[in-house]
């Protein structure tokens, strides 16, 4: 955290990377991992904090970007746990392209170097040598823990905690605390990173929403609607309000001068300055002035429209003026704050920006927002655990849904899984869930069904389903993608050539069936990362380490004398899963690390199966004879190119869907009205899939709960007279907003559906015929702004 502040532009050093003690620019920085995590000796935190590996790599990469390639960054770690989406690729990139050193070693001593602020690190290399290395700075990758106060609060609330003091939750109820009506999310539930915390937060909101759904809209008030004054055809009467923002602007820019200047500009009827334009009294005053002076367009020269435009637009609305007759000149963020040493030039710039804004606002036209009825039904694609939970969550909140499943049964991958890491029998829970779904009158299940075609847009989709040779069109308002992933069929390690070589799910099947052969095994070997973390599948499948370790424990419990070996690259039992790893070692499971360049090999001779692997401690090859080899094969996304096309959703290079925002929007798409959950997003265990399913449902409810939605007025539109029907707009639009008109006098010309249009302007710029206009950023408006870039001639 401290180091993050040093890197931050708003931090103590203004983003300049220096050692705080002597302001020296570091040449060598070391990160020490697992400080306060995976450590029973010093801090009693046996769990893994799950986020530190990735943040250390990120910090190292940013440091390099900041200080140049000369900076030496070394990360001392035990297991590199980059199990999140796109993390493995980032790790690989940091290693191979950014030149960050990854040293597998737990440092036990740091000694200050006499007479300097440097630090000496003493560590043991993988091949057993003891080295001393001096660094300018050491960053401790400190883990997460629950503060004392929270533990006490939990006691007061009567919430049960785990041995690691995180809130106790179940795999199938990942956000329910032990007490009904109290839901948990974020790191209190277990150590986790931003996307997972955001997922949990949405899921917890969904869980709370489920029990509160009957109270929805019982306490809301309707705002008063002020009739809009028609200003079409009127000469522009522009009001300019120049904000001082306390001293934020007025401390640099001569605000009265700017507002006096504004008065001289064409069509400006009135100009003044305000101390704080965004304060409630100023807002009221502005509304008053708009009415009094008969203003029909407004420029506010203040901060950034990105934060304050909606507020001022509201003021316009309150004064009866269409909210799009408004423009901001950004004289704070783009001016006073960044030119504090040249007040005169900053004042000149402010005048220029005001002049440009006035020139633009004069050209603006009142705009209408399209109103959309939202169909209150959801389409859930995929009948695995995620899809089922999403539908059930929606139903509990009072919304209907259709589940489309291409298979003949519900349940997806969960059907093949034996137990959860917390020892719940998956089949039992799944049976209950399927029963809940199939008996729910609000949920319609379509088995053996695929999707043929999708029309429409947010609020009003029409999806054509094909099942049992018949087509049905389902109207729905939102879509949840829960298309899932399935196990990779290995081509390596002699898979398929001997019945004793199986995948993790095959082993689960044997455990489910209580196969008597399991008890007879003398020895069992697991090989990790089969098909993951290499070549064309450069991602970690996230679930396999825990899965294999859990199954190893199951086998040990069946037969404590069984010799069990797990051959791995990094053990990634993040969070409290680490406790299983510990338990497995305690039970005598033997862990042997192999490197990707020197993988184990399998030989079958005279009916005997032997596996040869180079032991990382002995640094020499060893041969293990075994009766069962389980391959922890990768989780690969189910093919979804068609669906991606239908809904205009992006897929990443591994075939997983790309969410709206990697951190802040993990359960939704950039395409409005489409949501995402489960392993179609990234490999994840059941609890995380359920949390995300609830999160996707929760995000969907934010739309469904509204009967109608308004779209932005700042969209593109086509003048069909000028359209040449070339079809560029249709081809180029990322949102499928343009289409050809099918009947009437303009048949064959293009038109734009304002509901689908995001107003990006790609089509406007691409239209050679000049037929496409942009409400709010039209050519004439931008030209006018440019014409005003230099002082107008007197």
């Amino acid at each position, binding site marked *: 955290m401290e180091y993050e502040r040093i890197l931050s532009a708003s931090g103590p050093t203004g983003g300049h990377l220096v050692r705080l003690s002597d302001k020296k620019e570091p040449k060598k920085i070391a990160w020490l991992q697992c400080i306060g995590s995976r450590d029973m000796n010093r801090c009693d935190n046996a769990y893994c904090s799950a986020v530190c590996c990735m943040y250390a790599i990120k910090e190292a990469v940013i440091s390099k970007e900041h200080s140049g390639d000369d900076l030496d960054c070394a990360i001392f770690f035990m297991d590199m746990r980059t199990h999140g989406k796109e993390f493995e690729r980032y790790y690989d990139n940091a290693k191979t392209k950014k030149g960050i050193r990854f040293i597998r070693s737990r440092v036990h001593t740091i000694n200050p170097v006499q007479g300097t602020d440097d630090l000496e690190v003493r560590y043991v290399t993988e091949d057993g040598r003891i080295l001393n290395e001096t660094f300018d700075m050491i960053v401790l990758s400190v883990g997460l823990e629950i503060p004392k106060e929270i533990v006490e609060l939990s006691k007061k609330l009567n919430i049960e905690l785990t041995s690691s003091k995180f809130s106790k939750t179940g795999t199938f109820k990942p956000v329910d605390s032990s007490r009904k009506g109290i839901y948990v999310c974020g790191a209190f539930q277990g150590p986790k990173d931003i996307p997972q915390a955001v997922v949990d937060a949405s899921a917890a909101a969904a869980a709370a929403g489920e029990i509160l759904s009957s109270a929805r809209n019982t306490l809301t008030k309707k705002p008063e609607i002020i009739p809009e004054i028609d200003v079409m055809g009127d000469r522009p009467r522009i009001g300019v309000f120049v904000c001082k923002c306390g001293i934020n602007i007025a401390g640099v820019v001569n605000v009265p001068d700017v507002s006096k200047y504004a008065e001289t500009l064409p069509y400006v009827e009135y100009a003044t300055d305000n101390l704080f334009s965004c304060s409630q009294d100023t807002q009221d005053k502005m509304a008053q002035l708009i009415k009094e002076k008969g203003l029909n367009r407004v420029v506010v020269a203040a901060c950034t429209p990105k934060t304050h435009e909606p507020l001022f637009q509201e003021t316009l609305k309150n004064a009866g003026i269409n909210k799009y007759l408004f423009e901001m000149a950004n004289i704070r963020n783009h001016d006073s704050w960044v030119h504090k040493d040249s007040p005169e030039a900053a004042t000149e710039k402010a005048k220029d920006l005001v002049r440009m804004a006035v020139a633009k606002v004069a050209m603006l036209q009142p705009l209408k927002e399209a109103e959309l009825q939202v169909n209150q039904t959801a389409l859930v694609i995929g009948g695995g655990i995620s899809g089922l939970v999403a539908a059930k969550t929606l139903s509990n909140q009072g919304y209907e849904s259709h589940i489309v499943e291409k298979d003949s049964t519900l349940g997806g991958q969960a059907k093949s899984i034996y137990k959860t890491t917390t020892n719940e029998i998956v089949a039992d829970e799944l049976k209950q869930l399927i029963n809940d779904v199939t008996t729910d009158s609000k949920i319609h299940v379509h088995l053996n069904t695929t999707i043929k075609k999708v029309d429409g847009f947010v609020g009003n989709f029409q999806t054509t389903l094909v099942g049992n040779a018949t087509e049905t069109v389902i109207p729905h308002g939102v879509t949840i993608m829960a298309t899932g992933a399935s196990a990779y069929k290995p081509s390596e390690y002699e898979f398929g050539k001997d019945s004793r070589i199986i995948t993790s799910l095959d082993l689960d099947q044997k455990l489910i069936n209580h196969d008597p052969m399991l008890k007879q095994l003398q020895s069992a070997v697991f090989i990790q990362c089969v098909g993951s973390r290499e070549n064309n599948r450069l991602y970690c499948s996230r679930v396999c380490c825990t899965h294999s370790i859990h199954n190893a424990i199951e086998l040990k419990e069946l037969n404590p004398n069984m010799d069990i070996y797990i051959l791995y690259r990094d053990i990634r039992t993040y969070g409290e899963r680490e406790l299983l790893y510990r338990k497995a070692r305690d039970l005598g499971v033997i862990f042997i690390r192999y490197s990707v360049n020197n993988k184990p090999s399998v030989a079958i001779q005279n009916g005997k199966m032997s596996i040869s692997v180079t032991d990382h401690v002995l640094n020499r090859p060893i041969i293990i004879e075994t009766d069962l080899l389980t391959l922890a094969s990768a989780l690969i996304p189910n093919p979804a190119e068609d669906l991606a096309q239908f809904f205009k959703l992006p897929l990443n290079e591994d075939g997983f869907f790309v969410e709206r925002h990697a951190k802040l929007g993990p359960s939704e798409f950039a395409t409005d009205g489409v949501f995402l959950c489960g392993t179609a997003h990234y490999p994840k265990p059941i609890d995380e899939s359920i949390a995300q399913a609830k999160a996707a449902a929760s995000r969907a409810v934010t739309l469904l709960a509204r009967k109608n939605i308004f779209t932005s007025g700042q969209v593109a539109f086509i003048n069909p007279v*000028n359209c040449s029907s*070339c079809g560029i707009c249709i081809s180029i639009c990322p949102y499928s907003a343009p289409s050809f008109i099918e009947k009437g006098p303009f048949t*064959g010309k293009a038109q734009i559906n304002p509901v689908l249009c995001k107003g990006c302007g790609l089509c406007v710029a691409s239209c050679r015929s000049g037929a496409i206009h942009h409400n709010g950023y*039209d050519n004439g408006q931008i030209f006018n702004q440019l014409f005003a870039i230099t002082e107008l001639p007197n």
Partner: protein
Amino acid sequence: MIEYQKKIQNIAERLLNEKKVDVVLGFKKGTIPMMNQPCLVRVPDETQKLVWDSNCGINLTNYLTNRKERIGIIAKGCDTRNIVTHIVENKIKREQLVIIGVPCTGMIDKAKINGLMVNEIAEVSEHNQEITITDSRGATKTIQKKEVLQSNCSICKYKNPVIYDELVADLVPESKDIDRYEDIRKIESMASSEKFKFFEDMLSTCIRCYACRNACPLCYCPTCFVDESKPQWLGKGMDPIDIRTFHFLRAYHCAGRCTDCGSCERACPMDITVRQFTKKLEKDCVELFGWEAGLTLDKRPPLDHYKTNDPQSFIK
């Protein structure tokens, strides 16, 4: 060439007789030498007026725009690439067309020929790959056709039609290892001031007649940007900035679509080498997107579609 002409006439006659097309779009002899005119033939009897020689440089695709009838069109390699673009851009339907493909050996540059004779030229005839020029006083000169090719034809990579229903002759061998962009690289390597001077000189004679635009099959908008007044994209006068703006924007409108058919340059009464602009963008499209215009009906030009995995290494 006479064999080509015979074959063209035969095919045209047959298509009209069999009512496969309503009209055949081809060339007839012009009133002055080296100026064949586009013509429409609607009845079989008139097919005899169709001609073919090395003066058929006009790109007939220009005459297909928004036509409703079934058309037989005579098309060289470059013309067929423009037909492809026309089909992709909804200007005509493939089903409406019977493309009579002409394997092309290049068109001749009338300016070059004019430059060879002192007196007015009375007749230009060709035999095999030789051109014989007769002037108004009866003097003659015979030269190799390759010496007087249009400059776009001398660097042509697609002499043969890329799409056709009928062929008037066997396909001709395509030229290999042509350096299409020697002139462009030269301009690219100029310093800014040098470039400015170069374009200033190049466009100094432009009279803004828009012949280049009118000859171009890519220019089919109902209202051209040069004629629009709201917004006014550029001034209507002879201001050099407006002239340059016109040429730059025209070139951009052709990016990824231009087949270098040479119609623009051929049409220019001031002999301005306007292809320099379109070729620069053609080069960029090849280098950045591996794209050459008008070779496939299945894909739109690179600037016409949105892809999340767009190559963007050129964005620095």
